[in-house]
C-alpha cells in the first residue's frame, strides 16, 4: 500500500513539474495537443531547426518563431464536443 501511495505521489509530483505528464484519464485531444506543442517548442528552441524552416519559407527567423508560437495555441484544432 505504501508503495502504491508513493507511486501516486511521484506521479503527482511529475504532473506538477512537467506539462503533459499523462494520467489515467488523458484524452486523445490532450495527448495529441501535447505532442504537437512539444514539437513546436522544440523547433523554436533549437536554432538550427528554426533556421531550417525560416529558409524554407523565405522569411526571417523572428517571423517563423511567431508563426510557430501561434500554432501552439491550438495545434490540433478545437477540442472534441463533450459527450453526455
Amino acid at each position, binding site marked *: 500500500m505504501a508503495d502504491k501511495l508513493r507511486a501516486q505521489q511521484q506521479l503527482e509530483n511529475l504532473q506538477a513539474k512537467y506539462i503533459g505528464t499523462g494520467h489515467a484519464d488523458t484524452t486523445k485531444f490532450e495527448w495529441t495537443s501535447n505532442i504537437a506543442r512539444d514539437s513546436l*517548442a522544440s523547433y523554436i528552441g533549437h536554432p538550427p531547426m528554426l533556421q531550417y524552416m525560416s529558409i524554407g519559407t523565405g522569411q526571417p527567423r523572428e517571423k517563423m*518563431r511567431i508563426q510557430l508560437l501561434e500554432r501552439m495555441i491550438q495545434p490540433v484544432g478545437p477540442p472534441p464536443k463533450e459527450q453526455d
Partner: protein
Amino acid sequence: MMAAIEKDKLVWTLSRTGQTDVSISISSPLGVHRPQTLVYYALGMDVGYENPIFALLEVDYSESDADPSGEAFHEVKKELSYYELDLGLNHVVHRGRTTVDRTANMLFRVPGGNDLPSGVLCCGEDNISYYHVYEKEVFRLAIPRREGAAENPNRKRYIVAGTLYTLKGGNFFYLLQTEDGDVFKVTFDIKSGKVERLNIWYFDTIPVASSICLLRAGFVYCASEAGDRLLYELETLGDEHNEHVFSSDQFPTDPTETYNPPYFQVRPLRNLNPVEKVANMSPVMDMEVANLSMEDAPQIYTVSGTGARSTFRTTRNALDVLELVDSQLPQRATSVWTAKLRANDEHDTYIVLSLVNHTLVLRIGDDVEEAQHSGLLAETTTLGVQQFGEDCIIQIHPKGIRHIRTVPYNEEDPTQKMYGEITDWKTPAHRSIVACAANNRQVCIALSSGEIYYFACDYDSSLAQAEDEAQLDHTIHCLAMPDVPEGRQGSDFLAVGCGDKTFRIFNLNPRDQDHRILGQTGLMGLSALPHAIAFHAMKDQSPAGYSLYAHVGLHSGIYVRALVDEFSGTLSGFRRRFLGPAPVKFARVSVGGEPAILALTTRPWLAYTHPVNNTLALTPLNYMSIEAAWSFESASFKGIICVRGEDLRIVTLDDVDLSQNLSYEQISLQYTPRKLVGNHEQQVYYVIESDNNTLDAATRDQLKREQDEKVKEEVKSEEESEDKPMKTAEEEDLTNGELENDEETNGELLPVDFGLPKVEGRWASCIQVVDPVTEKAVIHTIELRNNQCAVSAALIAFESKDNDLFFAVGVAQDLKFTPYSFSKAFIQLYKVSPDGRKLEFYHDTEVSAPPLALLAFKGKLIAGLGNDLVLFDCGLKHLLRKAQASNCTGTRITDLKTQGSRIVVADQSQSVTYVVHKDMVHPNRLIPFADDTVPRWTTCAEMADYDTTVGGDKFGNIWIVRCPEKVSQASDESEDGQHLIQDKAYLGGAPNRLDLCAHYFTNDIPTAIQKTNLIAGGDRIIFWAGLQGTLGVFVPFESRRDHKMFQQLELLLRNEEKPIAGRDHLAYRSYYTPIKNVIDGDLVERFLTASNDEKASWAAQLDGAWDASSVEDKIWTMRLNFAF
C-alpha cells in the same frame, strides 16, 4: 527572470558578495508558474531603484482548449503581464496585465528613473506601441512601408530586431529593424518625465539581423541571420535628415482602426558606413569537396546564404597572402638572401640572388638597383650569405668562404666602394662545400668529402676556424644552426642531414662536459634522404615560452618536426606530414613578430605558432609555388622575399589572422541556393536557386516598366499643361525630379543590399552556371517563369543520346508548404554545351509530383516523384518511363545515391530504403528490399561502401546504417529479381531491415555529406557540412589500440572537462538516439589545451603504456593524417 515557452517562469536574484571581490551569488529560484500560457517575449524593465518588474507577452489558451466550437480560439487575447519581484519579501507578484495587439511579438525596454518615463515598447505587425505600467495612455506608431514599383502597398511589416541606445544626459533612441532589413529610428518626446509623442523615421537599410548592437565607440554590429556579419561605423545619428518623420499623433492607438499607412523611399546608406566583415558560411545549403582547380589538396565548394545575399564559396585550408611587389629578373634565380651591413642596422641593405652560374647583388635604397662594389664574389653560385659579427658579411660559395668588412653606406656617392678588407678562406684541394649553416657568430660548412668545419667569430669579427672537425662516412645534404640566443656567445647545436637517411644534432658548446665540439648528441632515422633543415627557436606552450625546433624536409616531400632539448641536445616529440610531391626546402621568416618557418614544396606552407593555443601549426599558403624565399625588411615593407623562375616577389603575412586556417573566395548568387551540381571536367558548377514568398524577376521588370511609363506620361502631361511664365520655377523642380530619377537608375538599389520584394505565395527561381576557377563569376543565368521553383538537379549523360551531357532540373509550380500542395510538376532537361558553360532548354516532361531527387543511373535518369521511384530515358519530346517502383518509401523521396545496380533512396521522414534495379527483364524492375527501423528525417545521404550508407537528419544527427551481408548478396543473386518480389513485406515495410552501425548528435543539421579525401595523400574520410556553417569530418579508426585509448580518454574527459553549464556530455551527444560507435573528437581535443600536469595525470589513468606526449601525438596524427 527566465521564462519557458509554456507555463514555467523562474526568477533568480543575483547578488554581489563582499565589497572587493566580484564573486556573484545566485539565489534559489522563485517560481511564478502560470499553466496553459505561452510566453512570446520576456523583458526586464527599467524602474530605477524600485523593485524590479518584468514585462512578459503572454497568451492564455485555456479557454480555447476547452471550447469545442472553436470560437474561443479566435478570441484569444495577447496580454502584457507585469511581474514584480518584491525584494523585501523575496516574493514575486503579478502586478497586472493589459491586453495588447494580438500580433505583438517583441518588447523593448524604455529607460526609467530620473525624469524618464519607464515602460515598454511593444512591437507587433505594423505596430510599435508604448505602454506604461501604471498609466492607461498608449502611444502607437505604424511601421512605415516601402514605396516602389515592385512593392505591395498593403503588406504590413514586423519588427524583427532592434536595440535601445541611451545617450549621456538621459536622452535615448531605438534602432528597430523590419523583416526587409530597413532600420528605423524611434525617438520619444518627453516633457517632465511624461511621454508626449513618439517619432519614427527611416534610418538606413542593412541585412536582416538576429541582433543589432550599438557600441559606445560609434559602431553598429549587425549579427545578420544569413551570410557575413557586418560592422558599420555610425557616421551620423540620423538627426539631420530629410526623411519624413511620422509621429504617434497620426495613428490611432487601436491597430484595427483605419489610418493612412506611412510610406518611405529606400535609399543607399547615409548614416552608416560598412567597415568590417566577419566571414560566415551559415546557412550552408549544399557542399561538395572536389579538386576543380587541380591543386594538391581538394577544395571545399559550398553554396550558402539566403535571398540576394547568397554566395558560392570556395574554401581552402590556406592562409591568405598579400602580394606587395612583383618584378622581373634577367635570369632564373635559384636562391635568395637578404643581408644587413651591420649587426645593429634596422633594415636589410642587400638582396643576394644566386643565379644559374653567378651571383647578383641588389641594393635596397629608395629603389632597388644592382649594387656596385659590394665585394661579394659574382662569378660563382652562392650557398649562403650572412651578416657576421659587428660589421662584416660572409658569402659561402662552393669553393670557399669570403669574409668582407663593410664600409658604411654613403648616400651621395653610389659608386663608392662598399667594402674594406676582404679575406678568402679556400677549401682544401679537390673538395667543395656542399652545405653550410651560419648565424651572426658561427659558421659551419660541410665538404663533399664528408667533413664538417666549424668557424666562430673572433673578437674583431673575423673568422676563426675551430680545431675540432667532424668526419662522417656519408655525404652531408644539409646543415642548419639556430640564431644566437640572446645574451649568448653562440648557438649550442648544429643540425646535420646525412646521406644515410639520418638526421643528427651536434654539439657546439665548448663548455659541454659530455660532448666535445662537433660531438653527436641526437640522432633520428628518416624515411628518405633529407633535403633541407630549418632549426630555430619557436614560441610554444613550454614554460620558457620558446623551444628549439628542428624542421627536416625530405626528398619525398615529407616534413618532419622534432623538439630539441635545450641542454642535452636530444630529440623528441616527432611530427610527420606529407606536404607535396617535391623535395621540401625551408625559409626562416617572421610573421606577426613571431618566428615562423616557410616550407616550400609544390606549394608553400607555413609552420607557425597558433596564436590562440600556442601549439605549432602547419598550414599551406594560398599562393603559387615558390622556389626560394627569405625574410625581408626595408624601410617601406616588411615581409617575405621569394623567387619563382624569373619572378622576384615580396609578400607579407602580417595582416593574416593566424588562428583562421581557412581562406575563402566568394561569388554572389541571385537567390537562396538549393543544390550544387559539379561538372568537374569543365570546371564549372550548376546551382539551382529559389526563394519562397518572393517576387520573380519577370514580374519585377514588368512592374518597373509599367511604373516608368506612368512616370513618363505624367511628366508629359505636366509639360503640356505648363504655363510659360511659370516655367523657370517649374523647370527647377523638374530638374530636381530628374536628378532623383537619375540617381535611382544609375545607383540602382541592388537586391544584395535591399533584399528582393516579398509577395506571399510567389516563387523566384533560377539556374546559374558558376565558374569558380578561371573567371570566378556567374557565367550564365536562366530564370524560371510561371511561379515555378527548382527543387532538384542532376547531370546526366544519356546513353540513348550518344552520352551527350544533359542537366535535368526538377521543377514544381505554385509550391506551398503546410499543407504541402502544388499545381504542376515537371522535369526540365537542358542540353549542356560542349564547354559546359551554357545550358540550352531541351524539353520538359510533366510528372505526377515534384521530383525532389534526381540521379544519373546507368545512362538514364532516375527520379523520386513523391514516394514513387521512376526510371526515365530521354526521348525526342519527353522523357520516357522505363521502370517504376510505386510507394517505394513512406513519405517523399528526397535524395538518391547509387553504386552498381543498387540505389539508396532517402525519404523525408522514413530513413533510407535500399532498392535494386533488375534490367534483364522487361519491363525493368526496381525492387525495394531493405529499409530502416527508425524514422529518420533524412536531409542527406552518401554510400560509404556498397552496403553502408551514412546520412544526416533534420534533427541534427549523423548515422551509419548497413545492409546485412546475406540480404545484400541475395539482392544481387538473380537476374530478374523474381524471388525478391515474392518476399513478404515485413511490418508494412520492405522485407528486410538495415542495421545501425553508428549514431551521433551533432547539434547542426547536416545538409551535405561526402566520402572523400581532404588532404593530398590522405585517406578517405566522411566530410559533412551543417546548416549553421559547420564543416566536420568523421575519421575511421584503423587500430583497436587507438580506439581503446580514445574511448578511455573520452570517458575521462567527460568527467574532467565538464562544461560551465554542467550539461552531461553523454546525454548531449545522445540527444535523440543513444550515441553509438562514435568518439567525440572535439571533446578529446580538449586534452591538448590542458595544462602539463593535467595532461600527465590523465595520460597516467589510461590503460596501456601511454604518456602525455604520446597521447598528444596520437590526437594530432588522428587529425592531421586526414584533415587539417
